[in-house]
């Protein structure tokens, strides 16, 4: 079961008013390569992962991805907090404001709502782990794009932390794949 702790994994600092970023950060909040996709993908794939190391890894990384999802939601919330409607419209967030006000919404940077079509759970551990490796690389690339899109040092710092976590998760999934591939040819006696 899941427990919640009333703190973020890493602090979120918003130092200037880069309101356009609120729209672009939705790519990592409810987009195809977002933390939400990653969290739900790993937490769904863990049921059919054969090795206990794999189950533990998918559970823990999935939970950490939900914590990252919270960080991105906090960033969007802080960027939109208190901003008047005319300024939002000028910065390109008019559609978001019309439909969601200053709320955070799990859609991608263009407003397309999140869908489970972004993830897949095959039941085959090699296929699942390869998809997880690809997902971590896609998330890392998205973070690099987002870091290039802003010049707010506080947001850049948090995005850099999140990007490093994606790289580390990629390494961990590589380990899990190695373990699964080593397990496959071993003799199993029943």
């Amino acid at each position, binding site marked *: 079961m899941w427990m919640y702790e009333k703190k973020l994994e890493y*602090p979120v600092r*918003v130092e200037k008013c880069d309101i356009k970023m609120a729209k672009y950060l939705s790519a990592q909040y409810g987009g195809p390569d977002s933390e939400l996709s990653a969290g739900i993908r790993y937490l769904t794939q863990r049921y059919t992962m054969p090795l206990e190391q794999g189950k533990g890894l998918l559970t823990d990384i999935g939970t950490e991805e939900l914590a990252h999802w*919270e960080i991105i939601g906090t960033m969007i919330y802080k960027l939109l*907090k*208190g901003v008047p409607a005319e300024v939002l419209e000028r910065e390109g967030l008019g559609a978001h404001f019309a439909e969601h006000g200053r709320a955070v919404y799990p859609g991608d940077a263009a407003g397309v709502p999140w869908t489970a079509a972004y993830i897949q759970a095959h039941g085959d551990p090699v296929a699942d782990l390869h998809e997880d490796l690809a997902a971590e690389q896609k998330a890392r690339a998205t973070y690099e794009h987002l870091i290039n899109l802003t010049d707010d040092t506080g947001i850049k710092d948090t995005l850099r932390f999140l990007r490093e976590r994606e790289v580390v998760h990629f390494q961990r999934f590589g380990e899990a794949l190695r373990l699964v591939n080593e397990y496959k040819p071993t003799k199993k006696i029943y």
Partner: protein
Amino acid sequence: MYYNPYNNYWGVCPYMPVGGYPMGDAMKYYYQPEIPVPKGMREMIVKIMETEFYVVELALYLDTHPSDENAIKLFNEAVGRLDELKEAYREKYGPLTHYEKTGCPYQYVQGPWPWEL
């Protein structure tokens, strides 16, 4: 109502109006005052964040290398430090989860939530 240049530790968009912010433009009665952050809370939370991140990182490593004794030693030491820090935090500011003993009124709901810090 004039706009407040950010002056809190973790910053907020400078459009924050002083004294609070409207939760909706048409509904003036959703106006909510700015939640004051207790002194020292952010510094303590950052220390807990650092130690807990260390623990999470070691936990992920131990998931795929469960028999690495050195890592297990570091992990147990870090968990000990984390428990002390969380105990110190709980005495001053209340519990971080709703699985801990609380005073009256219920402490878990109070105070700035993580996205309001």
